[in-house]
């Protein structure tokens, strides 16, 4: 049973937000007492608004992606649960400057249901709201049913690109087109080495026997697509990359962004060992890395494991992603 440093389990999301806002009060503020985090300098005049969000428990998603140059607002559901429509509706209203708002979020059934209701509510008031769904996780459905795939770590890249592009006076239609292209160019797959628990209860949401690992594990503890004996870091990286490269497919001379994401308890040492293999393997395939990011971007409590994301670049995406880190 996982032990967590918390107070009343019912206050988790509220206290997360309170703590984050205290820590970051020059950059962000809270919308009333809702689980909605907005830029401190809202409303930003004459800019398409970017609202992101989803279930809590995946920190730094989503609240840490709000600020100048990134998203304008993040709505937080309870742990692993889609945020209710009233939050998103209020976020849309706070963010809209007349040029419309993009809802940019991960393609989970619960999220889609709830965001759609909010979108309708806002549309009823004449606000132009468009949706861009993130569906980078390749194990969640075959390529023929890409619209059923869920979203994961591509978030990190998309939020940055959306923030940069919307900050440069791009209009709604161009933005939606750019973001859909960037989503399409993104593919992720991960591997889990241990279970994660619900912080409210401490109970693991699944079990993984000693010496096993699971490919395609969900961020919420949904079991993955195949369970195998624990593999080396190199073989793991290679296996994940083979699936990803094959899926888009990524080709020789493609230029890519790479994200190496830790799910929770995986150490940076392990992440860099995986990163090492990614560099040599992509290099061998003639795929060049424009920039890589290594860290925890899309977590699942104390789950051990990593996911790898590749995003194929073109001049436009590159411009808004910015310089190599």
């Amino acid at each position, binding site marked *: 049973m996982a032990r967590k440093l918390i107070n009343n389990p019912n206050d988790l999301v509220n206290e997360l937000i309170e703590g984050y806002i205290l820590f970051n009060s020059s950059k962000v503020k809270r919308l009333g007492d809702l689980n909605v985090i907005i830029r401190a300098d809202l409303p930003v005049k004459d800019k398409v608004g970017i609202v992101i969000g989803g279930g809590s428990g995946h920190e730094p998603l989503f609240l840490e992606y709000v600020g100048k140059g990134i998203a304008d607002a993040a709505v937080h559901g*309870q742990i692993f649960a889609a945020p*209710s429509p009233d939050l998103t509706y209020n976020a849309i209203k706070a963010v809209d400057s007349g040029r419309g708002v993009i809802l940019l979020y991960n393609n989970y059934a619960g999220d889609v249901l709830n965001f759609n209701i909010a979108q309708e509510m806002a549309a009823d008031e004449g606000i132009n709201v468009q949706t861009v769904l993130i569906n980078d996780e390749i194990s969640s459905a075959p390529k023929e049913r890409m619209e059923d795939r869920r979203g994961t770590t591509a978030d990190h890249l998309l939020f940055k690109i959306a923030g940069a592009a919307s900050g440069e006076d791009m209009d709604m239609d161009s933005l939606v087109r750019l973001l859909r292209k960037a989503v399409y160019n993104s593919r992720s797959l991960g591997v889990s080495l241990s279970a994660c628990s619900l912080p409210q209860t401490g*109970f693991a*949401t*699944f079990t993984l026997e000693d010496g096993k690992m699971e490919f395609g594990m969900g961020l919420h503890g949904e079991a993955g697509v195949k369970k195998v004996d624990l593999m080396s870091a190199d073989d793991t990286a290679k296996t994940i990359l083979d699936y990803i490269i094959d899926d888009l497919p990524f080709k020789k001379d493609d230029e890519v962004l790479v994200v190496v994401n830790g799910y929770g308890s995986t150490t940076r040492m392990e992440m860099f060992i995986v990163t090492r293999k990614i560099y040599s393997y992509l290099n061998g395939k003639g795929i060049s890395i424009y920039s890589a990011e290594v860290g925890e971007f899309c977590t699942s409590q104390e789950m051990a494991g990593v996911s790898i994301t590749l995003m194929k670049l073109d001049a436009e995406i590159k411009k808004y992603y910015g310089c190599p880190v």
Partner: protein
Amino acid sequence: MKNYLDLEDFKKIIFRINENVEKNIEYLSKLDSVIGDGDHGITISSGFRSTVEKISEKDFTSISEFLKFVGNNFMLTIGGTTGPIFGYLFSEMGKTAEGLNEKISPDDLCLMFTNSLNKIMKIGGAKPGDKTMIDALYPAINSLKESISQKLSLKNSLYLMAEAAKKGAELTKEMIAIKGRARYLGERSLGYQDAGATSTYIIISAFFEILNDQQ
């Protein structure tokens, strides 16, 4: 013998659902944790808890107004899948009740449930057999239709309806999940009962319990 449900009954039903869900939080979460993310008990109970708090402080003049309030509160404030799915269950019943009188007959009730089912299938895209709450709701409505055609009393009809929901929920064990998080499991979802279907059984049971209490 009373053969209808009035506003007071509907209120009692919601309170009873809340009590019964509360007793089953761990069970529901456990069902969800085998094939989902393990939060169903927490989410749905918090939905009914907040609903009960709010309706206690408010006066309602019609069944329609009441059920729409319950549904909207669920839908707007709970989130998750549970929020919209179970929210629409009540709000569509409320919408349907707009045209009906304040003594809901078995036929009325059947219409209300049917409209909810259709709405849920439309917004969620799931069909019977996909291993969702629909697999409890759909056979329950069929049972109610059957009871009506046989002219059974409302109480007996509700008893059979709850039994049908229970059986439907149990049958989800033999289904492969197509919608919801469990779908990522494919065949591995076989053998486990769907959490939302189980909640649906608990909800429908409360209809029977309230009528049973009065007689």
